C-alpha cells in the first residue's frame, strides 16, 4: 500500500520538509507580495495602500495613470520576462547537461544584439519599435548557425553545441565591437537598450510577449518528463524510450524562441536564465514538472526585486534592472551555493 505522499515523494534528503507543491505555492505568493510591494515605487512615489487602490481605479487621475500605464506593464513584464528567461535557462541546462548553460551560451543573446546593431547600421533612423523584431531575428539566426554547425551524422552532442555556441557568441561580439569602433553614432542607443531594462515597457509590448510565453511555456512543460529522462545520459534516455535528438532540437528551439522574445523586449538580462534554475533546484529538486514552475517564480522574483530596487534606490534616476539583477544576484547566488544541500 502506497501513500500519496510517498508517491509524489519528497525532495532529496529532506524527508520532513514541506512537499514541492507547498514550496511552489510559497514562491508564487512571494511573487505576488513583491509585485504589490514594488507598486508605486519610483520617480513619482505613490504610497501604499493608495497604489493598490489606484490599480483598481480609485484615487486621483495622476495616481491611476502612473500605476496603470507606467507601473503595471513593468510588473507584468517582469513576470513574463522572468518566467521566459528562467524556463529557457532551465531547458538549456537540462538538455545540454551543463550547469553553466543559458540562452546566451547558444549565441542567442549576442545574436539578438547583433540584429539590433545591424538594423541601426542599415537604417539609422529606424523606429524603436522595430528593435525587438531585429533582436528576435538576430537571436534565431545565431541559433540556426550554432545548431547546423554542431550537427554531424544525424546527431548533435551537448559538448559540440556549447562549443559552437561560445564561438558564435564571440564572433557576434567581435562584429558588434568592430561596428562600434567604426561608427559609434546611434549604436549607443542600441547598447543601452540591450543592457537590459523594463523601462520602455507599455501594454502593447506586454500583450506581444505574453503571447509567446503563453504558447511556449506550456509546450516546454509538456516535455517535462522527457527533460527528466535526458538527464540520465543519451544512451539510457534512448533506452527508456525518449527520442533524444528530436527532443533536444525541439526543446532547445523552444528555449531559443522564448529567450529571443524576452531579450527583444527587455534587453539582455543575462543572469536570470543562468541562476534562477539553480536556485529553484535548491528549493524543489530537479524534477522538471516542479522545477520549471519554480524556476519561473524565482526568475520573476529576481526581476521584480531588481526592477523595484532600480526604480526606488535613487529616484528620479533609474538603474537598469539588468544591472541590479547582477548586483543582487551574484552575492545571493554565491550564498546559496555555499550552503549544503
Amino acid at each position, binding site marked *: 500500500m*502506497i501513500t500519496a505522499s510517498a508517491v509524489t515523494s519528497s*525532495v*532529496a534528503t529532506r524527508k520532513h520538509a514541506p512537499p514541492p507543491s507547498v514550496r511552489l505555492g510559497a514562491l508564487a505568493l512571494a511573487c505576488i507580495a513583491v509585485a504589490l510591494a514594488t507598486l508605486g515605487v519610483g520617480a513619482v512615489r505613490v504610497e501604499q495602500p493608495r497604489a493598490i487602490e489606484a490599480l483598481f481605479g480609485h484615487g486621483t487621475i495622476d495616481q491611476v495613470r502612473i500605476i496603470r500605464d507606467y507601473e503595471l506593464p513593468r510588473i507584468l513584464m517582469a513576470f513574463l520576462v522572468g518566467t521566459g528567461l528562467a524556463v529557457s535557462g532551465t531547458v538549456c541546462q537540462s538538455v545540454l*547537461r551543463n550547469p553553466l548553460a543559458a540562452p546566451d551560451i547558444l549565441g542567442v543573446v549576442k545574436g539578438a544584439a547583433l540584429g539590433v546593431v545591424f538594423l541601426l547600421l542599415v537604417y539609422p533612423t529606424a523606429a524603436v519599435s522595430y528593435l525587438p523584431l531585429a533582436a528576435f531575428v538576430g537571436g534565431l539566426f545565431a541559433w540556426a548557425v550554432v545548431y547546423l554547425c554542431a550537427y554531424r551524422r544525424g546527431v548533435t552532442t551537448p559538448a559540440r553545441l556549447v562549443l559552437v555556441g561560445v564561438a558564435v557568441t564571440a564572433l557576434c561580439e567581435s562584429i558588434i565591437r568592430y561596428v562600434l569602433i567604426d561608427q559609434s553614432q546611434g549604436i549607443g542607443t542600441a547598447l543601452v537598450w540591450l543592457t537590459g531594462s523594463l523601462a520602455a515597457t507599455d501594454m502593447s509590448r506586454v500583450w506581444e510577449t505574453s503571447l509567446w510565453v503563453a504558447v511556449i511555456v506550456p509546450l516546454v512543460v509538456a516535455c517535462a*518528463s522527457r527533460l527528466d529522462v535526458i538527464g540520465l*545520459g543519451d*544512451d539510457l534516455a534512448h533506452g*527508456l*524510450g525518449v527520442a533524444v535528438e528530436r527532443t533536444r532540437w525541439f526543446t532547445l528551439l523552444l528555449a531559443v524562441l522564448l529567450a529571443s522574445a524576452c531579450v527583444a523586449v527587455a534587453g539582455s538580462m543575462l543572469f536570470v536564465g543562468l541562476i534562477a534554475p539553480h536556485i529553484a533546484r535548491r528549493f524543489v*529538486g530537479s524534477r522538471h514538472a516542479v522545477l520549471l514552475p519554480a524556476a519561473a517564480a524565482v526568475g520573476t522574483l529576481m526581476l521584480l526585486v531588481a526592477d523595484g530596487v532600480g526604480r526606488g534606490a535613487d529616484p528620479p534616476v533609474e538603474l537598469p534592472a539588468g544591472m541590479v539583477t547582477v548586483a543582487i544576484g551574484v552575492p545571493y547566488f554565491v550564498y546559496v551555493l555555499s550552503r549544503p544541500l
Partner: protein
Amino acid sequence: MRLSASDLALSYGDLAVAESLSIEVPDGQISAVIGPNGSGKSTLLRALSRLLKPTGGEVILDGKTISAYSTREVARRLAILPQMPLTPESITVEELVAYGRFARRRLIGAMQDDDRRAIEWALEVTATTELRDRSVEQLSGGQRQRAWIALVLAQGTDLVLLDEPTTFLDIAFQLEVLELLRRLNEREGKTIVMVLHDVNAACEYSHHLFALREGKLIAQGHPRDVLTAELIRDVFGIDAHIVAHPSSGAPMCVPIAPANGGAVDSPPIARLTV
C-alpha cells in the same frame, strides 16, 4: 527467440567494429558477452538495443527489424542499462526508478496503478525500498548500481540488457549485483544479456557465453562446453588453466603469467575511443 542479429556490420564513423556478426539471444536465460577491450562487446549491445544503427545487416526484435519500431515501442519490449549513466542533481531513488515508466506513461497525466506497482516491485526486488527517499548521489557504489537496475526493471520488459553492470564495484558488490540478476532470471523469467569483463563471473552466472574478438563471434554456448584454454588463448591471447569452481563446478580461468615476464602476445585490437 525474441532477439537476434544477423550479419551485422557495425562501425563508429570510419572505424569498423564488426563486419558480419550474427547472434541469437536464448530466451529465458542469462547470456554473457565476453572478449578483450575493443572487441565490440558494448557496440554489439548498443546495436541490439537500437542505440547504434548498424551499417549492414539487421537486428530482429519480436519478428520485426528493430529499426521499424519507434523509440518508445523498443523501450516497452527491451531495457538497456548502459555503462556509467549520469546521475541528475538532487534526485531520490524513487524518483529515479519512476523515470523507468516513461515509455508506458501517457504524455500528460498522473501515474496509474500499474506504474506504482511496477515501481514498488522494482524497488523491492532490488532491495532498494528502504533507500527510496535517499538522494542517489549519496548512495554507495553497490546501492547505486541496484538503483540503476531498479530503474530498468521498472520498465517492465522481459528482455534486460546490461553493459558491464559490475565494473567499478568491489567483489562483494559484484556478487550482490550478479546474484540479483540470477534471481531476476530464475524467479521472474527475465532474459538477461550482459557484457562482462570478468570471465569467471560470466561462467558462474550465465547459461550462454558469446566470446568476441575483433567483432567476430569466436565461440558460443554453455560455459562448461566452450570455456577452454584454447578459447582463452584465441580470444585474449594469454595462456590460462581452466579449473572447476570448488563449490559450483563452473569452469574458471586462471591466467598464467608469460614465462619471459614480457609483453603478452596479444592479438591486434582495434582500440575504440567511444
